[in-house]
């Protein structure tokens, strides 16, 4: 784990440490099995076409979980994720597989965030962030917000 982040360490506009992710067809199968989301939209070509999305798309909930990891990695073990939200605005299409373990060349997604507010609420030292999953073109396909509680050095 990365070293612990403290409330004193962050300011407005501080960046959340970027988390890169690569969605592959294999990852979508794993996510379906692990989450129980068996909507054929995420693995069946003809069904995806009939639903108007062209090809199988990345599960919104998987992108949500990437963003949750973005926050939990950044705040460290002593930090707490208090509030979280995200919207699935645009489709993302996974890379197909080249070998049993390696994906084809293609796009990488970047989970990013920055601090918008720093405050104390009761005995909690809080930080608000805007966050997003960005595709290779730099478009935010999954924007969101998070509120975290951080430990203090005091």
């Amino acid at each position, binding site marked *: *784990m990365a070293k612990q982040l403290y409330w004193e360490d962050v300011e407005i506009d501080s960046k959340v440490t970027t988390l890169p*992710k690569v969605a592959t067809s294999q*990852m979508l199968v*794993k*996510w379906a*099995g*692990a*989450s*129980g*989301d*068996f909507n054929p*939209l995420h693995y069946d070509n003809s069904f995806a076409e009939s*639903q*108007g*999305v062209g090809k199988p798309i990345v*599960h*919104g*909930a*998987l992108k*949500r*979980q*990437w963003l*949750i*990891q973005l926050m*939990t*990695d950044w705040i460290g*073990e*002593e930090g*707490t*994720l*208090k*509030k*979280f*939200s*995200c*919207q*699935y605005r645009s489709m993302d299409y996974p890379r197909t597989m080249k070998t049993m373990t390696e994906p084809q060349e293609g796009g990488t997604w970047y989970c990013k965030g920055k601090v918008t507010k720093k405050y104390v609420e009761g005995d909690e030292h809080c930080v608000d962030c805007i966050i997003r999953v960005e595709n290779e073109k730099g478009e935010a396909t999954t924007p*969101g917000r998070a509120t975290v509680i951080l430990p203090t050095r005091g």
Partner: protein
Amino acid sequence: MLPEEITQFIGKEAGTSIFEVERETIRRFADAVDDSNPLYWDEEYAKKSRYGSIIAPPGFISSPWFSGRPTKWGKKSTSSSEARGDLILALAKAGFWRALDGGIEYEFSCPVRAGDTITASSRIKDIIGREGRTGKMVFLIRETTYTNQNGEAVAKARQTSIHR
């Protein structure tokens, strides 16, 4: 603007499910996300942390495995979860047969540990009709509260699905 056949579901219970949080299920979930946080994987490490045991990643509990899925043996297919099925049917009948996940909002109040038993209760919070770029859409908002075996509130989730 939405027909009564659809709006009648606003405020209705949409199913309660009870599930156990297992270590291996947590690991499989973390593996699918490619999240190597030792709090999800390493019992010894997690024991020494402030949590005292392996925890589930925030968001784990809203997996379809746990909330609202009727089981093969029918225990979870209560009349209230049927309300959700009936609503999906009513939407399809009215021409909204394509569905997409729109997003989610969480408030987390206490960690979920391996071994916890969670009760998830859902309610249809709202159903909103909108005119979009590609025609009429319906936003269905479902609110779920999660409680652990000690009666502590664990989390609240508000999920939006978009029906076209």
